[in-house]
């Protein structure tokens, strides 16, 4: 939502950001990262931001790495093929442990892609040159020395809210399709609204009312999932980039690298953790709606399929 406004009015964006920042009363506000990714150029009606450029570069690198590494699949893996097999098999077993043997076969493609894409875009965003090469404000008119880069060629992909919201929306669509495929329309509605547990008589009527209300609440929480998923990823990565920038400024010209260094390690960790969180949350959301343990009733939501995987 923030970025849509930025995309629509590209040239107003800088002024708007500066204005907004000034409102917060920070002196170094013009040095902070703008909340919306700057638009570099237009392809037809489509604005291309620097975050999109980074996403494409990462996607190309990933495709190339897989093609070169596993172009000819060997029975006995070596080198890069070994790495990709380790990664994919490790992820498969991890996701299988959470959502069960049956569900993982159908949905693994999504969770592995999301994890690998998010972790690579996060780590690519930490490379030198991202956010520092590009057009900016010269120290004095006509000078080639820039005081501040306002339009870098690359920007952390997940520091663009459009990117994270797009991933979250894709998941939401997949979630809906999987939910309908596994439960059918009636089963899907039953899953949300129908009372659980074997009560009878007057208690059943009471429980039905309670569970209907719970179902309404659940719908609100389901609708908020894409919002919280995307804001979590965007917030973490955007805040991380901003912090790195602030720490570099803190150290000044000579020691900027030193003050920022510990935080680079932290951002490496945050990059993996956030990718893991995104994958885990989407996996658990899928498990919650697709669990087939309704007949066992009291078994409950949380561990139904995890336990089912073992027998």
């Amino acid at each position: 939502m923030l970025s849509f406004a930025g995309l629509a009015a590209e040239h107003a964006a800088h002024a708007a950001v500066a204005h907004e920042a000034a409102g917060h009363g920070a002196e170094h506000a013009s040095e902070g990262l703008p909340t919306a990714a700057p638009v570099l150029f237009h392809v037809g009606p489509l604005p291309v931001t620097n975050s999109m450029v980074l996403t494409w570069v990462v996607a190309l690198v990933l495709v190339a790495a897989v093609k070169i590494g596993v172009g000819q699949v060997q029975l006995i893996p070596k080198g890069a093929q070994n790495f990709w097999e380790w990664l994919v098999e490790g992820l498969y077993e991890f996701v299988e442990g959470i959502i069960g043997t049956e569900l993982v076969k159908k949905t693994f493609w999504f969770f592995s892609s999301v994890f690998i894409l998010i972790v690579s875009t996060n780590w690519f965003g930490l490379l030198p040159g991202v956010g520092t090469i590009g057009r900016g404000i010269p120290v004095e008119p006509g000078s080639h020395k820039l005081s501040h880069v306002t339009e870098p060629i690359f920007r952390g992909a997940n520091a663009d809210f459009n990117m994270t919201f797009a991933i979250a929306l894709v998941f939401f669509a997949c979630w809906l399709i999987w939910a309908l495929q596994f439960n059918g329309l009636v089963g899907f509605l039953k899953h949300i609204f129908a009372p659980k547990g074997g009560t009878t008589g007057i208690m059943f009527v009471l429980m039905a009312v309670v569970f209907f209300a719970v179902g309404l609440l659940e719908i609100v929480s389901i609708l908020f999932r894409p919002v919280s998923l995307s804001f979590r990823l965007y917030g973490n990565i955007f805040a991380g980039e901003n912090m790195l920038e602030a720490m570099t400024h803190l150290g000044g010209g000579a020691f900027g690298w030193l003050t920022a260094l510990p935080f680079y390690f932290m951002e490496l960790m945050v990059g993996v953790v956030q990718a893991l969180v995104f994958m885990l949350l989407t996996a658990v959301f899928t498990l919650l709606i697709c669990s087939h343990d309704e007949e066992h009733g009291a078994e409950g939501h949380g561990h139904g399929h995890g336990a089912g995987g073992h027998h």
Partner: protein
Amino acid sequence: MMLAEISGNIHVAAAAFASALAVGWIGKSASEAVGRNPGAATKILVQAILSTAFAEGIVFFALFLWNGK
């Protein structure tokens, strides 16, 4: 005499404070749980990461979803 001035939004401060506490609490409980039962480490990790994500989600709602004055 005014020694210091605090600017910003109180609701963001409250959310950040509470979610930091919550994340710390979850981490403490998860470490204790793994210490008691190392065999359940993966299951505990999943629960802990999920709860951490929900707890820290609050602060993002406070930061981004409310842009009033």
